[in-house]
């Protein structure tokens, strides 16, 4: 693998008697979106502040392109810091300056650009952030979402090569959260910077992240792709990921995996031996293609629509569903056999093809996607079982039965 852009080697940080980071080792690679997840107060922001030099480690080394920061001379350090931009959790906008002045500040103070050039760059960022009406307002006159966008615009105005985002979506409603994550993903693709993000938004951050770092009990316990995290067996998953997911997913409206399991046991405990139930496993294929062709908003909308339509068709007859992986959904139909499940599946496919596709198109148009069409398929597999069988083996069985049930082509030009 390439030399990491940023690497922590045995970094320890203490505040008085309290150790916040203990022999932390991590690697961050160039051009990727790396997300640090962990519970509140676990030291994620502290970790981020070490990268930009706001905090210094008590022990250990931080390396930039293989070179320890402590051995860099003044000019090298200044050149390193010049590449980084930081978006604070509470925005840290200057409350005595207007939005325009806030965004212009780093250009005015750290560059020798002419006034007209600064104005051009700032105006462009303001327009991209949809803040044109708020340019002459003070931060206190803006909503939380607008303040976030102003902070994002300020972080991006110097065209940094590394951007650190400290909980960029905290305190936002689900729509705004997705909009901010979408904006980060869009900017990252457009400008190709390395993004390092601290976030609680699981699993939504998975869509835009190349790598996930899990901070748990003062150390990094996991580094890898979101898919690898799904198969990571560690107390971190139960304590952190499940607690962050909550009871219901904001994106799909379906149950969390934990709640799904609770419901499963509660429902099937009431059944007697010999009674059957069905499990359907859906997979939305080519999600990456949707992100690439139609944009992040469209991919989010595709998952959202899947959740809504699954719940609409199967929830009404006592079924309960969850999103098992980024693009995989599981539905348990406690009162249906195989034939009934197949019939309901057909209705679901017809309805989704007719109506569900519209949301995806709307998402694609909102982001003005570069390409105007994409093709993706939905796979589904059904398995019938009895209460004594473990749910995981029934799901595996349904997955093995998966076949293409719909091929959807959404063309934005229509």
């Amino acid at each position, binding site marked *: 693998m390439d030399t990491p852009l940023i690497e922590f080697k045995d970094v320890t940080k203490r505040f008085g008697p309290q150790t916040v980071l203990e022999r932390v080792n991590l690697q961050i690679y160039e051009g990727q979106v790396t997300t640090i997840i962990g519970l509140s107060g676990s030291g994620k922001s502290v970790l981020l502040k070490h990268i930009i030099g*706001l905090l210094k480690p008590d022990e250990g080394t931080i390396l930039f392109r293989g070179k320890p920061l402590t051995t860099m001379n003044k000019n090298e350090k200044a050149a390193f810091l010049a590449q980084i931009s930081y978006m604070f959790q509470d925005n840290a*906008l200057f*409350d005595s300056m207007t939005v325009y002045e806030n965004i212009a500040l*780093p250009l005015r103070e*750290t560059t020798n650009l002419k006034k007209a050039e600064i104005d051009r760059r700032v105006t462009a960022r303001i327009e991209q952030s949809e803040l044109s009406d708020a340019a002459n307002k003070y931060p206190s006159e803006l909503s939380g979402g607008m303040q976030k966008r102003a902070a994002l615009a300020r972080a991006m105005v110097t065209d940094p090569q590394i951007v650190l985002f400290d909980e960029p979506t905290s305190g936002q409603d689900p729509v705004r959260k997705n909009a901010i994550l979408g904006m980060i993903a869009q900017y990252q693709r457009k400008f190709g910077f390395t993004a390092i993000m601290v976030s609680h938004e699981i699993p939504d951050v998975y869509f835009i992240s190349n790598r996930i770092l899990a901070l748990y009990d003062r150390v990094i316990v996991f580094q890898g792709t979101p898919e690898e995290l799904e198969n990571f067996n560690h107390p971190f998953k139960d304590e952190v990921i499940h607690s962050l997911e909550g009871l219901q997913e904001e994106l799909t409206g379906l149950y969390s995996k934990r709640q799904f399991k609770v419901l499963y046991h509660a429902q099937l405990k009431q059944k007697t031996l010999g009674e059957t139930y069905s499990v359907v496993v859906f997979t939305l294929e080519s999600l990456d293609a949707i992100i690439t062709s139609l944009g992040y908003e469209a991919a989010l909308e595709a998952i959202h629509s899947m959740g809504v339509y699954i719940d609409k068709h199967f929830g009404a007859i006592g079924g309960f569903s969850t999103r098992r992986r980024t693009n995989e959904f599981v539905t348990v139909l406690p009162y249906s056999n195989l034939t009934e499940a197949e019939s309901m599946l057909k209705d679901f496919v017809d309805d989704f093809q007719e109506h569900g596709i519209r949301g995806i198109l709307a998402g694609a148009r909102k982001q003005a996607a570069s390409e105007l069409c994409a093709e993706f398929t939905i796979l589904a597999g059904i398995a019938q079982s009895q209460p004594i069988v473990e749910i995981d083996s029934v799901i595996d069985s349904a997955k093995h039965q998966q076949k293409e049930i719909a091929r959807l082509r959404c063309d934005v030009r229509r």
Partner: protein
Amino acid sequence: MALNADSQSLSKSKARGQLGRLLTRPFAAIGGAAISWVDNLGAASIFLLSAFLKILRPKQAPKIVQQIYYIGARSTLIVMLVGLFTGMVMGLQSYSALVKIGAEGVLGTLVALTLVRELGPVLTAIMIAARAGSAITAEIGIQRISEQIDALDTMRIDPLRYLISPRITASIISFPLLTALFDLIGITGGYISGVLLLGANAGTYLHRVQASMEMKDVTGGFIKAIVFAVIVSTVCCYQGYFAHMRTDSHGAKAVGLSTTSGVVLSCVLICVADYVVTSLLI
């Protein structure tokens, strides 16, 4: 028996230790406070020096002008008002005392020298500390606790250059000018009460003001004003800049306490410095 003797010896030794701690506690407290004082004094000196060295960096002029407006221009009215009434009170008190010994002719000398040498620089500095100093501490303190100063660091904008240097420079420029204004208005106040209200001779008053004043009185007043400017701006900026390091409180309360500390400490140090500078000038 031996065990009993050991235990008695142990309890005696414990009691001696407790007594020792009790006796040394006041000295330890005084020593701790002294070390903390010296520590802060050293930190504030380094803070001042670091900020001072950044005064001549590029892009400082507009910020200095802006701070002259906030610290200097916007303090003009309050300084004029205090100067006027201080001069008028001096005129009243001095005339009523001097007339008893038939020395009302030196009213102008008394008012002018007292104002130019002492009251002008001291009262001006105290008024600016109360008006602008408190605002400086509160503003910087809020910027500190809301991470705005950290944001400057992340944008590679040196907070000492951006926030502190302009304020110290603006204070050094504003204090002597406002002191001069205070002196002028104060002497006018003495004229109003002594001459216009109580009937002292106008020509004698003005002549005495002019004749008794030497250049060293004026420069001495200005030296004091500059010293006070450095003290007030450094103390107020320092208190705000390190508001987050307070051990007695956090957040908004820390900013409030830092603001109080900034003003009180400035006033005390103005009085102390006044004595020291006067003793050096005389």
